[in-house]
């Protein structure tokens, strides 16, 4: 998997952003909320790499700090949704009776667009990082349930499951040691995509003003503040936007890369493609 440049690039971008945001307080003396009214809406310069905003705060520092919220929300939502979806998906796929109940609930939830559902939940719960995580986790798990269920249905009639039953293994053992390891790849791939979608959704919620507290820098908050200055100070909205684009793009590419790495057919095709191109240039 690491052989492909695309995968290396996406891992590189993600690592860079993560390390930058974790170590931000070590290498920058300016606080992300340091206000200097004399430096309002300055364009990018060597002193303020990404310019300053309407309160004179440094956009570079704020963009870096904002990654914290996005990455935390994305990661935790991905874990929560994956966990919930995997558990329900395993049960729905394995037990026929539970299937009809769980899948009707999932169908019902999928009838709402995930973002609208999250929006309603955040509006009800109030905007904080924890509530956003709850809302997004709740909005994203049904998709995972579907994927896991489909994978379980594929695997559960294979002979080694039957063999496990004849050796007297309990359902729990069959689900955790026979089925789960064999459907891990779609779960990991979907988990990565959920990560990306959660970052986007968090930004959207913050942009709509019902996300994280406006005093905390997040990419969505910054974009929202920037929208009235978009013609005067385009750098104000470009850089936080770029943060979202890069992170989401990297995650999606990583997801694709993982899928290819797990899929034996894709591997074969890749080899074939290489062969063909070698023949062409030979």
């Amino acid at each position, binding site marked *: 998997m690491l052989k492909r440049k695309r995968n290396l690039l996406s891992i590189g971008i993600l690592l860079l952003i993560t390390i930058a945001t974790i170590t931000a307080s070590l290498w920058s003396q300016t606080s992300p909320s340091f206000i200097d009214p004399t430096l309002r809406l300055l364009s990018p310069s060597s002193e303020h790499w990404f310019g300053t905003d309407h309160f004179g705060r440094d956009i570079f520092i704020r963009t870096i700090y904002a990654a914290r919220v996005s990455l935390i929300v994305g990661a935790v939502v991905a874990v929560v949704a994956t966990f919930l979806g995997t558990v329900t998906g395993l049960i729905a796929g394995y037990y026929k009776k539970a299937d009809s109940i769980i899948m009707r609930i999932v169908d019902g939830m999928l009838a709402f667009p995930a973002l609208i559902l999250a929006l309603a939940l955040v509006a009800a719960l109030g905007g904080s990082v924890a509530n956003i995580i709850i809302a997004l986790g709740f909005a994203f798990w049904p998709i995972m349930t579907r994927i896991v269920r489909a994978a379980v249905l594929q695997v559960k009639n294979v002979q*080694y499951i039957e063999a496990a039953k004849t050796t007297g293994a309990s359902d729990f*053992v069959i689900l955790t040691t026979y089925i789960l390891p064999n459907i891990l790849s779609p779960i990991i791939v979907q988990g990565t995509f959920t990560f990306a979608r959660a970052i986007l959704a968090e930004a959207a919620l913050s942009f709509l003003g019902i996300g994280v507290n406006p005093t905390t820098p997040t990419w969505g908050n910054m974009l929202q503040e920037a929208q009235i200055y978009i013609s005067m100070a385009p750098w104000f909205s470009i850089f936080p936007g770029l943060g979202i684009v890069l992170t989401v793009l990297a995650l999606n590419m990583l997801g694709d890369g993982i899928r290819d790495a797990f899929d034996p057919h894709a591997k074969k095709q890749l080899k074939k493609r290489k062969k063909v191109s070698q023949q062409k240039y030979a």
Partner: protein
Amino acid sequence: MSQELLRIQDLEMHFPIKEGVLQKTTGYVKAVNGVSLSVNKGETLGIVGESGCGKSTLAKTILGLLKPTSGDIFYEGESILNYNAKQMHELRRNIQMVFQDPFSSLNPRMQVGDIIAAPLKVYKTTKNVKHRVQELMELVGLKPEYYHRLPHEFSGGQRQRIGIARAIALEPKLIVCDEPVSALDVSVQAQVINLLEDLQKELGLTYIFIAHDLSVIKHMADRVGVMYLGKVMELSNNESFYQNAQHPYTNALLSAIPLPDPVKEKERERIVLKGDLPSPANPPSGCVFHTRCPRAQDYCKKNVPLLETKEDGTAHTVACFFPIEHAEQIQK
């Protein structure tokens, strides 16, 4: 007469065919349709038949993987169909299975040692699981060093040995072998069959050996049963079966065995059955074989032949109104 280990009585396994939006049952696939058999301790009962005749369904029912529609199964004289979960769990120790496809019957993500250890861990029979697994691996002819390898690193024959090791791990009394060699090369087949025979001698196992290869059955089985469309057509001891087959279907099957001698092979007279295997969802009336039987008469279309013991008192039984007589066979 040796002791009876397992008896199957009038076993029926019908699968509903569901159609339409409302999943209404529109019919049944009669995979096993009234089978009565018994297996004695220490013997090998061979079961042959075309694909789709219900052999594997029968195996799954014996193992309790499927709940039969009607009929009964007795293990050591006790009906096992009404066993509760705990009793069933105990029974599973005594009845194990070797599967047909050595590629799909092993979990690709588990190490070989763990695959063989799985039943030991469920029943906690031994404290030193690893030692026991290595013992088992040696017993079936695998190097104990292979403990940490994954199934895909093995050949078909080796994988089948892993499957056999798993089946004998709990020291069961009965092993159901569902076409254990049909997915293997001929040379490997012989090895696996010899292994199964050695294990039988060593551990006193009883086998129900399902196959579609009559030569394999001839080599392995003490008694042979022929199945056709979910019914047993003929049941006999090995010798009598191959020399004195009485059912026209058995006769046709036997005539299809190729001979190793090319001269004799050329002279071999083949009985080719006309038509296809009827659908088990809609089996023919009367004798299920009458649509393809060269000896069929009107009587066969209306009446169902039962598997009856012949008057001469041998264990050779046949479900046919017009069996091939012994004299006729000799004439041939």
